[in-house]
């Protein structure tokens, strides 16, 4: 009985997730697909998406790794508040995030006016919106990874007079690489799909701020076929990203378990 129920529930959820994806793929204009893919408008959106996503993922990893490490290993007053602030974008409606970014970094915004900068409507604003929305998707798994490192390994390194930096680079980092990679891939996938904060904060201009999700939205209103082509392209990219992540962490997971005999 419970087994049957579980199977039914699983099948239902799978259908719910699978049918829309299949519907999208079934509507792909097979005959004109190659021609449409090479259209400059689609190419432009693809290029912009790849460049901004790469940049934002890099920023997130560089800034997020120390943050995750500190959160995993230190306790300090107000830590809970800091953690919640970092997690907030995960549940925040992206348009709210976009508005917040506009009020902060817009030229009439808080920081914008103080520094005299004009971020909105630039590619940099797209990257900033992606960093804002996707950083927690990296920090959460990275933090879990750092927390999972056996303290005894770090202590052992310390007794061998390894500096904290050396220990981090040679002991902690290799052990947490799977978590960091997983987090980076999740953040990357989230950044690739970012829409609401981008259109609110960065605007919508082909080649400058119109990433693939924005291009899908605009195309939906005028050229459904282009919207479908872009959507499928996005889906393939995200699918590849997640699948690659699974394969990679699977491999690294077994590799890292080899270097941590004590942890086992």
């Amino acid at each position: 009985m419970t087994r049957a129920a579980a199977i039914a529930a699983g099948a239902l959820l799978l259908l719910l997730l699978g049918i829309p994806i299949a519907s999208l793929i079934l509507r792909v204009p097979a005959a004109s697909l190659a021609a449409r893919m090479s259209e400059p408008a689609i190419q432009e959106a693809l290029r912009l998406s790849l460049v901004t996503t790469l940049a934002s993922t890099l920023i997130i990893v560089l800034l997020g790794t120390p943050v995750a490490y500190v959160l995993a290993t230190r306790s300090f007053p107000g830590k809970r508040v800091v953690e919640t602030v970092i997690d907030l974008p995960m549940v925040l409606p992206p348009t709210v995030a976009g508005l917040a970014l506009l009020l902060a970094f817009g030229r009439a915004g808080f920081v914008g006016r103080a520094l005299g900068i004009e971020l909105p409507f630039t590619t940099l604003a797209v990257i900033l919106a992606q960093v804002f929305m996707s950083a927690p998707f990296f920090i959460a798994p990275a933090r879990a990874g750092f927390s999972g490192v056996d303290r005894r390994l770090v202590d052992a390194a310390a007794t061998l007079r390894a500096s904290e930096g050396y220990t981090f680079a040679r002991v902690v980092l290799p052990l947490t690489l799977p978590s960091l990679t997983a987090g980076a891939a999740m953040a990357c996938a989230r950044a690739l799909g970012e829409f609401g904060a981008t259109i609110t904060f960065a605007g919508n201009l082909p080649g400058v701020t119109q990433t693939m999700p924005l291009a899908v939205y605009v195309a939906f209103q005028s050229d459904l076929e282009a919207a479908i082509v872009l959507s499928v392209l996005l889906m393939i990219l995200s699918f590849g990203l997640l699948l690659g992540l699974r394969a990679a962490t699977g491999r690294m997971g077994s590799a890292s378990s080899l270097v941590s005999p004590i942890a086992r």
Partner: protein
Amino acid sequence: MKRLVLAFLLVASPALAAPDAATIFAAASLSESFQDVAKELEKTGKHYRFNFAGSQQLAAQLEQGAPADVFASADELWMRYAKEHDLLEGDPRLFARNRLVVVTPKTNPGRVDRIADLARPGVKVLLGVENVPVGRYARQVLANLHLSRRVLANVVSQEENVKAIVTKIALGEADAGFVYASDVTPGVRGKLRRIAIPDDAEVIADYPIAVAKNAPHAEAARAFVDYLLTREGQAILVKHGFLPAEDARP
């Protein structure tokens, strides 16, 4: 658990208990005026709810089978599109017109004082996307002024509906944008400066409206459309900055 369910019901009940209302798909520029019209009609016991967005988006939603009772577009193009796709009942009627204007933030950071200033390099201009009516009308104005090339080079973002342009200009994030006269509402009037478009380049927006095919609330839908064309309905639209429909007829 029981308390949780109770709390949920308490929060959700107003939404669940909402009176049966006719759904009106209307161009974003009609947001304020149509709410007022609905308030008037509420007195006769009819209820309306709205989906305000760019006309092109509404047409796309209608085509995909979104349940609507009324469709009001900010141009004839998208109404024709709906008609051609057999989404309407009967023929559309023109119920209002709207003037296009250029707005800048009150502080005028881009020093835009006349329309030609939009062509000065570095001025940040907001336009609607090409298929939203306000974007199409604005491009016509620019073509009339022979400024298309230079102003289009200054466009920093193409917004999907006119209200997004109004908000970003009111926030002071861009230097100028093309919107409708009716968008300079009391709510944002203090934050905007308005620059008129020269008469010889002016483009007037036409607003058609129609009852949707197989409208679930056809009676309330017809009442809404009819009311717009009464003297009272026209007065509400004029109060909100629209031009009356009458003059639209040649």
